[in-house]
């Protein structure tokens, strides 16, 4: 709806509340963030983004499933993501290219938070944006830790 009033019982808000990035936000703050997001629907097997593309923002899975695969190998599955998961988060921080491909495994609903809109959130609602940034930093730190552990295990194995 273009000029309608926001619905306080928006089911999308309930779904977003379960996303790790937004777990520190109140429903009011979440409604503010939701107002910046773009909803998309993908059919099963539709590509969401390709490796090598310039990323513009992060995607959150609302329903359905998304697989993240490494380039040049559709079977090399990195992640299989369901409702509440998010991907492409590095593009929220800088203008880097996507390092993997994202493809809908089944009919999928996602919402996208564009980098420029996240930056505007930092300006207008810095408290909300800093809570999201803090959660994002925690997620990235956990992934880095896991990557270091994996590298060590690989090193010991060889």
């Amino acid at each position, binding site marked *: 709806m*273009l000029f309608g009033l926001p619905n306080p019982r928006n089911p999308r808000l309930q779904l977003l509340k379960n996303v790790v990035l937004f777990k520190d936000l109140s429903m009011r703050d979440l409604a503010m963030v939701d*107002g910046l997001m*773009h909803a*998309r629907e993908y*059919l099963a097997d*539709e590509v969401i983004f*390709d490796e090598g593309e*310039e990323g513009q923002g992060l995607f959150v899975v609302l329903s359905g499933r998304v697989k993240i695969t490494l380039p040049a190998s559709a079977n090399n599955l990195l992640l299989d993501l369901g409702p509440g998961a998010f991907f492409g988060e590095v593009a929220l921080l800088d203008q880097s290219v996507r390092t993997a491909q994202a493809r809908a495994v089944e009919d999928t609903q996602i919402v996208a938070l564009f980098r420029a809109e996240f930056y505007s959130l930092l300006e207008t609602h810095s408290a909300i944006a800093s809570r999201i940034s803090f959660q994002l930093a925690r997620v990235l730190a956990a992934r880095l830790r896991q990557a270091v552990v994996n590298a060590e295990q690989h090193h010991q194995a060889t």
Partner: protein
Amino acid sequence: MNRALASGPIVWLGIIIATCLLLVLFQTVLWLVMPVLLAVVAYYMLSPLVNVAIARGITRARAVFIVTALLTIFLVAIGLIVAPKISRASSNWKNKVGGYADSGVKLIANAQTTLEKMVPFVHRPAAPPETGKAKGGAAAAPESKPTPATAAADEAKENAAATEALDEKVATFTEQHSGDVALELARWIPSLLLVPYITYFFLLDGPRFKRFLVQAIPNAFFEKTLYLFYRIEDQMRRYFQGLLTMTALDALCLGTGFWFLGLNAPFFLAGLAAVMAWLPYLGSIGGGLLVVLVAAHDFPGNYWLPYEVVGLFIGVRLLDDFVFMPLTVGRSLHMHPLVTVLMILLGGAVAGIAGLLLVMPVLGVVMVAGQIIGELITDERILARYRHARHLKRLRARTDLYMEG
């Protein structure tokens, strides 16, 4: 997108053609384009204030309402202050225009006389004496050499005749066109009243309208389109904010200069000249001419004042071109100076004054859109993804359509 978008000649040709077509279209609906353009300027001027208000915990709707209400009050107050002055001035504007034109002619005549005194070889040859006899007649008496006194008297006569002729022309022109000007003003005022209204909705519903437009974009083009919107908005914001900053700097420099020179209403004149400079080249010349005429009219005894004003204008113009412009508007468009000049000339040729005024912002937007659309339609992978998604949709639509057996 860090790397500069490199467009080929075909994309650039498309950009130029699209810009010209848009300028022609905009010229036909100028009554609508102008309030929208002014609303866009007001939007970029006010959106930082709205953001500040939102950051302080006010809802967007309330922040937009407060800021737009303040703008309206400000404009009404300006109107209430200026309208009586304009009304008073308009009652004798025919005389005033004549007075300014008269001062201009005197200034030119003085300049010519001074130049002739300073540089002898530019001295005009004296007009041949009117003997009343046929030219080349055998009985023509040998011409007597004019004395300096008679030459000066002739010059004074010529100047007086030229001034009189110009006064007549100005009087006839104002007589003929005063009705047209009043009608034109009456036609523009209602559309200009739309400016605060359009600004209000730009501020309130701009982000929602963007999302509404993005919804119509196919998935394959989604991220690129988001980027396109961002680039266009960024381009327009930087252009208009740059333009406003440059106007303020120009007005400040000129106003300070006029104040030092002792002109009446220095900052009003400076503001007027700075706003007129929005019209590339012609606007600057027009603004300069206006102030020179005012200086010549208000201080007829101060012979050097108009020249000092011209000097000040040239100084500020240089500051503009080499300091202010690269720091403000120039940064926003990243355009080659030759392309800028050619496009301004082309804009003027296809859409007149409106084209001159609109060519840069229109070109800025079309350039970004053209570059990204050019990139999209030549990206085989994105096109393949689009076709793949359509194929999936068609398959889905056909599911269970045909019964087997």
